[in-house]
């Protein structure tokens, strides 16, 4: 129980922390399955495949609220995409989606004062 509470508090601590240098950006924006939409300002830092699933990592130079809004709007505005569930807490948010023949989740975590990490998981539907 303590471990999970500590993790939660640690997440919230990120809201006050100054940001260190951001991770290196990919040289070119990756083409994600199903033409998954780009949120304005997203900087991609890595893309990998875990079996059938594509996982893209990156960040937005924003706090959690605007970052969540950016992805919510991007997904809702993309042709053929739906937000199936979304949720926001103090330091983290999730936007679950279906579209482009895939389903998945955008997981957002504010890691410092002005940066939110983004993990996009895209699975074939």
């Amino acid at each position, binding site marked *: 129980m303590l471990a999970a509470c500590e*993790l939660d508090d640690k997440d919230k601590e990120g809201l006050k922390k100054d940001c260190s240098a951001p991770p290196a950006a990919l040289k070119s924006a990756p083409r994600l399955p199903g033409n998954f939409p780009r949120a304005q300002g997203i900087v991609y830092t890595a893309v990998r495949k875990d079996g059938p699933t594509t996982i893209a990592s990156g960040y937005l130079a924003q706090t959690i609220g605007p970052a969540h809004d950016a992805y919510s709007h991007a997904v809702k505005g993309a042709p053929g995409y739906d*937000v199936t569930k979304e949720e926001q807490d103090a330091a983290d948010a999730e936007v679950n989606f279906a579209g482009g023949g895939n389903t998945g989740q955008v997981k957002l975590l504010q890691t410092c004062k002005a940066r939110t990490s983004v993990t996009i998981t895209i699975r074939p539907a």
Partner: protein
Amino acid sequence: MTRVALIIAMTLALAACGGSGHAHGKPLVIVVNAPFTRTPYLGRTIENGVRLAVGEVNAAGLRVGGTSYELRVQTKDSALSPARAVSNVRSAADEHAVAVVDEGTGIDASWRVARGLPICIVFAGGARAVDPTTRPNVFRIAPTDHGVAFRLAEYLIPKHLRIALLHDDSDYGSAGASALAAAFSQNRSSVAVDETVPADALDLGPQVLRARRAHATALLVWGRPATIASAIAAARSSGWDVPVFAPPTGADPFVRQQLADHPSWVNGLTFAAGRLTAEVGPGPFTSFEQRYEGAYGVDRVGVKTRAGQEVVEPPETAMYAYDFVNLLAAALLKAGSVDPGKVTRALEEVTTEGANGDERAFNRSSHEGVVDDDVYFARFSDMTYAPVKDDPLSATLPTIDQTR
């Protein structure tokens, strides 16, 4: 209205309707359609989850459209028979039940005979069972087979294992076979053998031997608890220490009961399931578990740890059933009516706080209450399980105490 505001509004509305704390009013029946005789643990835990929420809703009072109601629970045994499950749902509709909480057997036919009555599946995860467009009255709060199969593929394929996929010929196993076929379709080189086995078979020696001869380095067994126990027994009794992976049925007490004479055989069994705790931590789930145990006692697995402690099963499926009843109560208030069509539509518009502190909600584009990314992995040791450390989500989750 934001979701948080809606949760608060619904909670206040339920509380505001409260009176003396004693239920009075017109009976409103929730039918629990589950395999009480064939898989007693599953049936009982679904029923208990429903009864716990019903007690709390009734204690707060439920006033819908100017009439006071008292929720009641009626159980019907499906015996894992699709025909019986369908018959049960038909009679629930005939008897004007307000909703059915369902294990999932027979849903491909029962949704139609329900005549608009909302049905919530709290166990079976089959892909076609839930579709807001073609089956608007069917909802689910349970991990989907799609989520479990893809999460297993994501976890296992990067480990470069050669996986034997064994699935039994039950409805549950067949649905799992379809989900696994999709999840491994892009990585067939990871599959050593893909075989259907008889459900509830006592001896899976020949099938497990074929997997071994195919140079499998992992077994992924998707089936009823008896199938998983038989596969483990066949592998271990032949001296094959292959890692075994399973869907949520791997955690069913029956698996451990069947292998109780050889507790070490259970060690290492890894299963995928819906996370028990949310981002807020284990507090809300622990509180739910305490209320559940206070009302119905612990769900004893029937085995002990090496130190002699009694092993108990956390009420995961009960949590899903409990959450649906709370969503149903919120939907009744929102609809201002007990009309099945209106309640079904209202179920797409309400949000409640689930037993684990996470939001539970459906909407027009999704009738799924558990997202695929909430599937985690846990591994057995000494008859209890703990989240694995080599998966990003699982590594963040606390271990729930399973001894008393």
